[in-house]
């Protein structure tokens, strides 16, 4: 059988793993796809390459297709999220100077309590807290606004969230241009490794089941190539299931570490995959179960309520109509295509495509079309519940 060539773009990050594993371990080939991967220098360029049809799809920040649907940034070409590729996996870090100050003021760096960490950070930072994020339309930015906003810090007066490419974060931290950062793995660990920062919090402590990256394609492509889209969804689902096996982490980190991909020490990548993060240059380690999900709790299912949450947040801070934004956003999270693609497989498919976000405190079994599924805790640090149907 001849394979269908297909190119996906990615940014060299730990959570590009589903694409890399799909190619290297033959999950793409199993679906008849000859998968090529292309690394991009920036999120805006990756988005434009997809929008202009130079590549079929990409590993994309979950808010990017939503922002595009709302007319924020980039070309007006509609992008769809065919599936989620990862949940969580980001860390908030602070400069070593700020960390010392917070420690003196009594903060324990437990790497778990978002209220305590946020309160201590706000107290230590002074007038305006300046935090670097990789992209304006990112879960990094949304979770920071949510977390610090709930603790009383108002943007833009007291909170200045700035876009900085991750390779420049450490430099900016050292130069005093920013007080803190929120980045995806492995950049938090790199800041610790080179002594420029300490990790304060995993973003899973802010929202324990936040969709992080999605597989994005052009809407037109997904509509005109339903068979290819379905094969791509199945490929990603299988790669994500493989990645979720703890016994595969070592192999996965070795593959990701290769010069062609992340070109970093495998040991550092394994820390992110296992959630055993080193949080300070002195070597303090914290275990964070659920730091990064690829598969558990139907992690790859593109919940329309997740798109709704992102849209509600984006609308609030850009002055758009909340209802219209949510309606537009829900259309681009293609739970319909996901269901069609995986109906013939063992994948458990949730009974609904929307849920209350933030309602689960513990793993919860729910019935599905074919059996049952254990959803993972998805609570927000402040106990709020997001109802996608609420006006």
């Amino acid at each position, binding site marked *: 059988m001849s394979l269908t060539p297909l190119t996906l773009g990615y940014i060299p990050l730990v959570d590009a793993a589903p694409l890399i594993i799909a190619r290297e371990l033959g999950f793409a080939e199993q679906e008849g796809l000859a998968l090529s991967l292309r690394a991009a*220098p*920036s*999120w*805006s*360029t990756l988005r*434009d*390459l997809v929008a*202009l049809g*130079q590549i079929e799809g990409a590993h994309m920040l979950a808010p990017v297709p939503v922002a595009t649907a709302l007319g*924020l*940034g*980039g*070309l*007006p*070409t509609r992008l769809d999220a065919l599936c989620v590729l990862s949940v969580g996996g980001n860390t908030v870090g602070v400069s070593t100077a700020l960390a010392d100050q917070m420690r003196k003021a009594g903060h324990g760096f437990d790497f778990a309590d978002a209220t305590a960490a946020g309160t201590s950070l706000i107290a230590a930072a002074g007038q305006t807290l300046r935090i670097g994020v*990789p*992209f*304006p*339309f990112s879960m990094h930015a949304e979770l920071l606004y949510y977390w610090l906003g709930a603790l009383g810090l108002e943007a*833009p007066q007291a909170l200045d969230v*700035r*876009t*900085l*490419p991750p*390779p*420049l974060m450490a430099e*900016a931290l050292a*130069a005093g*241009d920013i007080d803190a950062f929120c980045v995806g793995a492995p950049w938090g660990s790199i800041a610790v490794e080179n002594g420029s920062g300490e990790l304060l919090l995993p973003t899973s402590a802010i929202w324990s089941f936040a969709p992080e990256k999605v597989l994005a394609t052009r809407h037109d492509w997904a509509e005109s190539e339903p068979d290819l889209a379905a094969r791509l969804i199945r490929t990603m689902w299988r790669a994500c299931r493989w990645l979720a096996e703890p016994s595969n982490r070592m192999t996965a980190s070795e593959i990701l570490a290769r010069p062609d991909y992340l070109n970093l020490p495998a040991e550092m990548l394994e820390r992110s995959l296992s959630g055993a993060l080193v949080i300070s240059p002195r070597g303090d380690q914290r275990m964070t179960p659920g730091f990064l999900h690829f598969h558990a709790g139907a992690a790859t299912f593109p919940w329309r309520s997740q798109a709704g949450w992102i849209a509600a947040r984006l609308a609030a*801070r*850009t*002055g758009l109509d909340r209802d219209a934004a949510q309606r537009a956003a829900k259309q681009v999270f293609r739970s319909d295509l996901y269901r069609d693609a995986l109906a013939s497989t063992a994948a458990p498919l949730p009974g609904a495509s929307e849920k209350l976000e933030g309602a689960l405190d513990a793993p919860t079994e729910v019935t599905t079309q074919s059996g049952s599924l254990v959803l993972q805790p998805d609570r927000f640090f402040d106990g709020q519940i997001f109802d996608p149907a609420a006006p």
Partner: protein
Amino acid sequence: MPDRLSIVVVEQDRERALLIVDSLRASGDHEIHVISERHGLARLISERNPDVVLVDIASPSRDMLEELTLASSPLDRPVAMFVDQSSDSLTRAAIEAGVSAYVVDGMAPGRIKPVLDAAITRFHMFQSMRAELAATKRALEERKIIDRAKGVLMKARGLSEDEAYALLRKTAMDQGKKMVDVAEALVTAAGLLS
């Protein structure tokens, strides 16, 4: 003059920036600023308050410009990524050539087209020059390593230069490796043993 455009070029390489400026000047009487600073890019741009921002798409700094597309940015005038009203062919050509343009919302495509055309030509030329330079550098590096490996073999086994080269090539073929990889391993091993 109302037709005068204010253009900011984000480019770290000074020589390249100058050439881009030259070609933009040739396309019309514009006010052109080059920003090479990576820190505070959004702030520096908003101070200039330009009509057009041109940036290399290979630069990770491009993501910083996305902030300008948000209404809440320090820039008063909203900025959009340039899209030709009738088709996206010009944007596509720009992206292929490796340049991205951010344009103040509502500017007529007719005014921006000559600027973008000039930028595309210049960026395109640079892209191929850059690729050529990288390939040449790599070839030189490889030759240096192979020469050193030949030297190691000639000294250690008393071979002639041709024989040393032939041995390297045969070993590479037998092991299914690139010659430069075999040479590199040999040079490293020789360094460790000496």
